[in-house]
């Protein structure tokens, strides 16, 4: 281990794909300890200087849900029958959507926050991404506990399929991380990406059955049915609420696609890191 030779040159590293994959695997193993410590730190820091602490993990989806419950309750907007109590539907929808939103932002956020160490230490860069994933998973747990508690309170206890919920959440994090990773290199150069993500996510939320059921006709129904997020959100919610999952095939397909994207995003992230460091080093 101590005697390996590192070669740095101007040549593109793409030609040596096999050793790169091996190196990626090794760095992933090397980074797990650092990732874990970073995640624990960040989670602790989340409530050290805050009164509401970990509650911030659920406040945004919670307010989103309340707005929609209010809109529907007062009859301002009409929402088709959701198959489950609307409050459960909208609650679970916004929570699951928030998991996706957080995980899409995590790679860029962690990389930007880690600028000072990125430009000074040669550590496995995977650690930053992994710490983001761990933190998203932690926040997702808080959200899951809250939804389950709310479901019990609302008199709608979940059935056995709820044990598949972690899988659904994992898919959402996978989707978010793979998209986030692809955006990170350009996002580290231009802050527009970081600012743009929340804006785009707002629109995307209404193109996904988060707060209302998929319409059966019209152009919006076409958009929603082609939206890759639809099977992920719907399947996760179906598992949570115990409804038969209606998009299982789509769910598998989308997961495989995101997995491939994750690998590509990871390669891109690694390859672009030296160039990013050179441009951002302050």
């Amino acid at each position: 281990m101590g005697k390996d030779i590192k070669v740095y040159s101007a040549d593109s590293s793409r030609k040596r794909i096999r050793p790169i994959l091996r190196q990626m695997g090794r760095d992933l193993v090397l980074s797990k300890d650092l990732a874990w410590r970073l995640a624990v730190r960040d989670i602790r820091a989340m409530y050290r200087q805050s009164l509401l602490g970990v509650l911030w993990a659920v406040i945004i989806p919670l307010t989103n849900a309340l707005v929609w419950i209010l809109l529907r309750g007062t009859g301002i907007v009409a929402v088709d029958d959701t198959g489950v109590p609307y409050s459960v539907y909208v609650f679970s929808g916004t929570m699951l959507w928030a998991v996706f939103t957080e995980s899409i932002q995590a790679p860029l956020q962690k990389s930007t926050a880690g600028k000072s160490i990125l430009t000074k230490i040669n550590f496995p860069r995977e650690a930053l991404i992994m710490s983001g994933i761990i933190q998203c998973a932690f926040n997702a747990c808080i959200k899951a506990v809250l939804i389950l508690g709310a479901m019990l309170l609302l008199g709608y206890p979940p059935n056995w399929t709820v044990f598949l919920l972690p899988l659904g959440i994992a898919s959402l994090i996978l989707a978010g991380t793979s998209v986030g990773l692809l955006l990170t290199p350009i996002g580290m150069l231009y802050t527009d990406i970081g600012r743009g993500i929340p804006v785009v996510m707002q629109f995307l939320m209404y193109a996904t059955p988060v707060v209302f059921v998929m319409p059966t006709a019209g152009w919006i129904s076409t958009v929603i049915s082609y939206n890759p997020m639809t099977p992920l959100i719907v399947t996760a919610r179906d598992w949570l609420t115990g409804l038969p999952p209606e998009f299982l095939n789509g769910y598998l397909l989308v997961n495989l696609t995101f997995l491939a994207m994750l690998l590509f995003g990871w390669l891109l992230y690694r390859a672009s890191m030296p160039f990013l460091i050179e441009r951002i080093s302050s």
Partner: protein
Amino acid sequence: MAETLISVENVSKKFCRDLKRSLWYGVQDITTEILGVRRRTVNSLRKQEFWAVKGVNFTLKRGECLGLVGHNGAGKSTLLKMLSGLIKPDDGVISIKGRVGALIELGAGFNPVLTGRENVYVNGQILGFGRKDIDQKFDAIVEFAEIEEFIDMPVRNYSSGMKVRLGFAVAAQMEPDVLIIDEVLAVGDVGFRAKCLNTINEISRQAAVIFVSHTMPQVARISTKGLLMHKGQTQYYGNDIAKLIELYYGSFGNIEGTKTGSMRADLLDVKLFSGVNREVKNQLFKIAYLDELCIDMVFSADNSVRFLGLNVGFYDKELKAVAQTFSVNSALRIENKGQQMCVRATIPELSLNPGVYSVSVTITDERRGEILVYHHACKTFQVFGDFTGFTPVQYKADWELVDSH
């Protein structure tokens, strides 16, 4: 025959002056990297670009220590960043064998949010050590760094000296094959610095060390090889450290200072000479260690001033005052004649450490101590000798063996 651990061949790196453009070049570079096409622009500069490092070559074997010197912005740090794999060279090849320990910039190598203890473990693992190895070395690291009480505190609360201590301790105890140290030893107290230098010396027997410093005595003490960089290019590379240091000092040139004070006197000219050795225009005046130095000062003062005091201060290149001579402490009383006057100060044996110094002249009203004119760094000169010491003044002393009781 010791094995070659570092080989740097014709390494170059471009930087861009303009941020917006630089970011766009970054996008281009990443794209070509991903597509795997050879960058067409490798050997040419794009708009607003310059060579931060150009065509640097060197090799370093186990047991050698390279002193890397140069002005700010000479490309030293850029070179080190390439060596530690943080950024890619635009041209040339770097190959490094073995475990690399790098201390780049103050307090780097540590994650500020983690505690000292966590950082030690994380860094050790990055260097390829198992948890058990680190457990074994942990006490030695903490002891070396002398920060037992603070080891469980987040590193961001450390003082700069503490960060350097811990950073150095980790790098030193992890038995690196290659150790890269960037100017970090400028911080920290004298005792610790001495300890570090000794340790670097020890490490360099089994490793290849690259050492960046602006403190020439440190360089002289531990380097076996030297590389002087100037504007990204190699100005000197070789084994003659004394020559390296002389070239480094020589590259400073004359710096004309500014005049301040109440201006009731004016310093018209200052001349340095030593015997027949006179100043030549646009050249650094050089004088040998222990030679006689004469300073002629031509001045005039306002009629309201009766007696004048002239002070000559010597400053090193970090602008620290290292020596002075004041006319008031001599037998001479300088009475203002109301016209242009010239005073000569002669220092019979100039015992300054070889290096570059600047001369500042102050003219005061002897009675009231008012500063009439102060000309900072009005002259620069170089002392040369066949040695370099640690302190600015190197006394000439008589050394002899005497009975031991």
